[in-house]
């Protein structure tokens, strides 16, 4: 029986094997020496960027979300956590939850002696939903935050919303919906609790559905998420 040896095919297969070997060595180096974390808006993923000017009571200023993170966080209680609400100042549910959000921003602040956990910094990314009657502006966002008069929030004067002024909440201008799209927000309000290292610890289901934070079968609020997940002094001492 006569055998025909194809030199050209042999060269291709030999080369393929050699290059494939180099490729897999590269893959193995990456697999064994790194533990990549995807950027996204699911729990366990790294929070995407949040762009836009911010308002903390003293005019609108540029804002870098990445500055909020401590990439070397090792689980200690001294680094700040982040709670962010995606909202619309004309969304009735957002107006109704403003009271609780403001209270929470004070309750989980480092200045509250009764809170033994890490400080939680509160943010709100204010958008303008594509719904009739939801026309918004920076003036309206500022009025919502400061609870000042002269602007209309959900068909009422912003000064009439529940709760006090959100002195500890930073509002971010997302009127162009850029952040909302990037964070894949399906409804307002949607809440994210973010660890000091920028990893999302908890996300609400969007709208009025807050989801079950502690797996007890009951629907919870973002406050339950903070109490359940944020680093506490007592937990550290007990560990």
């Amino acid at each position: 029986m006569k055998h025909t040896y194809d030199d050209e095919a042999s060269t291709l297969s030999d080369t393929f094997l050699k290059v494939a070997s180099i490729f897999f060595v590269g893959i193995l180096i990456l697999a064994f020496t790194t533990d990549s974390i995807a950027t996204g808006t699911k729990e366990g993923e790294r929070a995407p960027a949040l762009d836009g000017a911010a308002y903390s009571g003293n005019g609108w200023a540029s804002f870098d979300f990445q500055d909020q993170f401590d990439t070397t966080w090792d689980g200690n209680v001294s680094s700040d956590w982040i709670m962010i609400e995606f909202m619309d100042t004309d969304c009735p549910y957002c107006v109704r939850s403003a009271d609780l959000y403001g209270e929470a921003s004070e309750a989980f602040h480092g200045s509250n002696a009764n809170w033994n956990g890490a400080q939680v910094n509160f943010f709100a990314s204010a958008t303008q939903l594509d719904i009739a009657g939801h026309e918004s502006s920076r003036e309206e966002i500022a009025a919502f935050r400061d609870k000042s008069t002269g602007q209309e929030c959900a068909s009422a004067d912003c000064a009439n919303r529940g709760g006090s002024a959100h002195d500890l909440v930073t509002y971010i201008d997302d009127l162009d919906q850029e952040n909302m799209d990037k964070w894949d927000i399906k409804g307002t309000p949607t809440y994210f609790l973010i660890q000091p290292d920028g990893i999302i610890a908890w996300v609400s289901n969007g709208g009025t559905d807050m989801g079950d934070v502690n797996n007890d079968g009951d629907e919870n609020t973002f406050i339950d998420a903070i109490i359940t997940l944020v680093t506490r002094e007592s937990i550290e001492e007990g560990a």
Partner: protein
Amino acid sequence: MATTLLLMCYAVPILIGLLLILPGTGSYFTGLSERFESLQTRRGRLFTGLNLTVLAGLAVSVQTQWIHAKVSEGANFCASDTIFSCDDVIGNIDYNTVPYLDWPWGMVGFVTFSALLFMSYASSKEPNAKWVKNFLNLGSLVTVAGLGIIGLLISYELEMGKLCQFCTMAHIANIVAMAGFLQLRSMHGEKEWND
């Protein structure tokens, strides 16, 4: 310092590759050509330079993908307050992946340089095979298309005001490889090919 040394490890083979690929540099390799026969001919020098450059491009792409993964973990590798800060460039989630596809640029380079290495190495082993012309055409096309990607990534760097040294090294490898593929492509079928 360690970053500079590492960068040199990638720069040296690319520089040697460039010297082999550049016309009129044959005399520099006369001494070596006695030991390495492939360096005696222009075609041999071009293939050797191309293989060396593409291999270095592959290695530096793995490095950028590694930095991408490390930065995503929250670690620092080459963060700096100066213009040279690959962590800031590779770690910028607005620009560090292919638009719409979300593939890290390092992985794109890794796969592309692997394909280029396959084409250049196979062609160098069997230069008169019938598929060599196709490989040289495809290699030229891929590396020329790479110029568009390089332009896009440089525009990102300008926007950020930061420069990623390792990414730049991969870009240089692509440009040198393009010069090699184009010269081999024009030489293929000519008398010089079989000299």
